[in-house]
């Protein structure tokens, strides 16, 4: 196959007003009136299913009742007590598969209480009012803990440790703290630099030092950290990206979706960002959705998500799939990438093979091929752990990820871990927050024993 026309990748596809509109808050916050009307819908269930479904066990009926009772800042304290990143989780949690899925009003009417938006109302109110930090740090213990990774797991762990009176140093390879909250989440879910505001809020507890630009294995070693600190928490995330394994993967226009999103999150001027006219995103998870929708919002005309299995197998929730579709993204199932078409060092098309499940339920190609023209191909077929920086310190892994106990202890007596880098569990912000919290309590218990 030869290129029919030169690849159309450019910036300034839209007017500046369009960029502003497209990347404004995708779910605008509730007004105080809307929040009161919505809060009134909560039944204050006994042993509430929403609370059980929340990975951080936020007392949802209690915080909603506080909103009802005219105490939204108090509601935020209830949230923060379980989840110090409750503000970000209110924005990014897939509530439709967590708390809101099991809300009894979902069962009764198909319309759950809008728990996510109420949580945002409470936490936003708290932060906008610049209330004093809701927790008081315990007397200093003199213990020092290193946290590697300033993402949700690391920040959650650091805050909880600091609140117990420990001194915490957080190392992060990037320029800014926040991890995926800063570099990975779609821009329209966290506007107005919220991730940095939240980091500042967390640091208000005191006793936490953040050292950015310090990568494990490059600037600090695990060996040194375990020697110098009383305990270490690893919240490394998943730094690698799965390759397609096709020729031409290094061609211009073949891009890791996570990199595309990270650049988009950091760029000052969205209109300066280049985007293709026709885009194919390979994958079926949240990253695929975020990359597809954001490229559409940057002005791409045709955006297709190609996923090698069926709709029911997609990691992205139905809600997120619909979000993509309402933004004009076409989702095609049962298509696996077969070859990239490159001309003059740039991709211009991708051929995919139709797939099916064979008699044993295994994915198999049918031999039928489909070729889609593409100025850009985004790879979003999963992120991978990197055990490299752990070298020199014996830690058990499981399929490349760190093995941890229920208390988030690794096989090394001084090292705990949590978030996406550990084995098992869903790769969700809220799960990472819980990991950090559990690990912090375990570290505290171990150090104070």
């Amino acid at each position: 196959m030869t290129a029919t026309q030169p690849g159309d990748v450019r910036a300034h596809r839209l007017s500046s007003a369009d960029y502003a509109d497209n990347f404004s808050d995708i779910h605008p916050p509730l007004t105080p009136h809307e929040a009161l009307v919505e809060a009134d819908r909560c039944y204050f269930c006994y042993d509430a299913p929403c609370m059980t479904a929340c990975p951080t066990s936020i007392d949802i009926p209690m915080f909603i009742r506080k909103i009802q009772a005219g105490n939204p800042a108090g509601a935020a304290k209830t949230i923060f007590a379980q989840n110090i990143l409750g503000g970000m989780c209110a924005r990014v949690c897939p509530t439709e598969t967590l708390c809101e899925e099991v809300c009894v009003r979902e069962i009764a009417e198909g319309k759950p209480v809008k728990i996510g938006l109420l949580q945002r109302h409470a936490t936003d109110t708290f932060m906008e009012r610049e209330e004093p930090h809701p927790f008081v740090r315990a007397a200093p213990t003199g213990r020092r803990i290193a946290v590697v990774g300033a993402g949700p797991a690391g920040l959650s762990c650091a805050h909880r440790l600091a609140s117990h009176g420990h001194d915490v140093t957080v190392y992060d390879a990037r320029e800014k703290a926040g991890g995926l909250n800063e570099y990975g989440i779609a821009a329209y879910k966290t506007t107005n630099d919220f991730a940095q505001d939240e980091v500042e809020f967390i640091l208000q507890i005191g006793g936490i030092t953040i050292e950015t630009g310090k990568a494990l294995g490059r600037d600090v070693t695990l060996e040194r950290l375990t020697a110098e600190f009383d305990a270490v928490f690893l919240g490394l995330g998943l730094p690698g990206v799965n390759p397609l394994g096709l020729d031409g993967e290094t061609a211009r226009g073949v891009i890791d979706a996570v990199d595309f999103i990270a650049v988009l999150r950091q760029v000052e001027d969205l209109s300066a960002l280049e985007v293709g006219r026709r885009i194919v995103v390979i994958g079926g998870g949240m990253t695929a959705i975020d990359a597809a929708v954001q490229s559409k919002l940057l002005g791409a005309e045709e955006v297709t998500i190609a996923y090698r299995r069926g709709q029911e197998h997609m990691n992205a929730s139905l809600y997120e799939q619909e979000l993509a579709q309402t933004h004009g993204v076409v989702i095609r199932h049962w298509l696996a990438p077969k070859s990239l078409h490159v001309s003059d060092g740039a991709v211009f098309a991708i051929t995919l093979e139709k797939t099916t499940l064979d008699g044993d339920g295994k994915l198999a190609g049918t031999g039928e091929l489909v070729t889609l023209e593409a100025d850009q191909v985004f790879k979003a077929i999963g992120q991978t752990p990197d055990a490299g920086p752990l070298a020199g310190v014996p830690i058990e892994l499981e399929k490349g990820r760190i093995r941890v106990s229920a208390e988030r202890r690794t096989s090394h007596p001084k090292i705990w871990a949590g978030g996406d880098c550990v084995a098992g569990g869903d790769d969700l912000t809220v799960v990472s927050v819980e990991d950090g919290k559990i690990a912090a309590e375990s570290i505290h218990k171990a150090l104070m024993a």
Partner: protein
Amino acid sequence: MADLSTNFLGIKSPNPFWLASAPPTDKAYNVERAFEAGWGGVVWKTLGEAGPPVVNVNGPRYGAIWGPDRRLLGLNNIELITDRDLEVNLREITDVKRRWPDRAMIVSIMVPCEEQSWKGILPRVEDTGADGIELNFGCPHGMSERGMGAAVGQVPEYIQMVAEWCKHYSKMPVIVKLTPNITDIRYPARAAKAGGADAVSLINTISSIVSVDLDNFAPVPTIDGKGSHGGYCGPAVKPIALNMVAEIARDPATRGLPISGIGGIQTWRDAAEYIALGCGTVQVCTAAMTYGFKIVQEMAQGLSDWMDEKGYATIADFQGRAVPNVTDWQYLNLNYITKARIDQDLCIKCGRCHIACEDTSHQAITAMVDGVRHFEVMDDECVGCNLCVNVCPVDDCITMVEMTQGSDPRTGRPIDPAYANWTTHPNNPMAKQAAE
């Protein structure tokens, strides 16, 4: 189509829905709008003596409590009787009655407790062509400090005396409006009847402080930093009013005395309940003040539809039907046994029935069965109290089912089909006869 027309003391109206004496009936403009919307009658806002009218506060007059979604449940007011000139009111009453001859026009009156005052105003009201008068012995704020309103209504002798004057100086039917701010409503009702009153209407508003402003520590509504008690009305007072109506309806001394029921009527159903307790008409205020006059259409149509469904051709067909079933606790059948039943198909698993029963009552509802969230009544603990029914957010999900056979798993005693009440119960030291 049911016939909703009423004849109350000879006063005819196309339906039993009257607007109570209150702000909605203060002037011709409002009353004509009410009649256009379909109200069967009005009680014109209370007239005072000739001369300089009363003055109202110029700050907030109302306060409220709300339910979910800010639905108004109770309203409190510190407004006084009409603050318009008597002459203007009388002229407007005359005009409106002339234009709307088929609607009931009752005039509420409150003048000092002196014979000359009543003797002076009654002929003037009668000249308007009004169908009757209602004596405001109920207003609990402002006027009561001047020896009127509730200050009269709380003294049965005064009620009787004023009723006698009104019957003496006027041919109009006399309705005495009763205050609920007393210990036993039967005494003022008996006094009204003894004074020759043709009917009573009740309840007037209940003395209340509706809330306290926690920023300036003053009652709401707050007038320049201070507040005084007001009169409470709206849906929240309906249970209190129904009881008082029933007390009068079943009191041998007042049985059969016509009653115009007032208190928290929001829908046709509320009205039907008052009528079932003996009322000949009902009066509405808060619902109109919340939603406007159009609500009378839901009330009238709803009442008509229900009567059709039940086969009642006229209001009289069901009026007072609930009175014989109001009794004293001591006559309730202690052999009647019910158990709560949870409809598992309707249950949304909120668990409120469980926690209400577990924390505050009888530990008779499960939360978990075989490791699964499941709410089920344990008959051996259930006393049939109905709390679970009341706290369940789903209509008809939990019902009380009568046990008619076998034995009560809670007590182990066989179900006794015979009626037996406390007066003969062996545990009652005052039992009138020994139990078998």
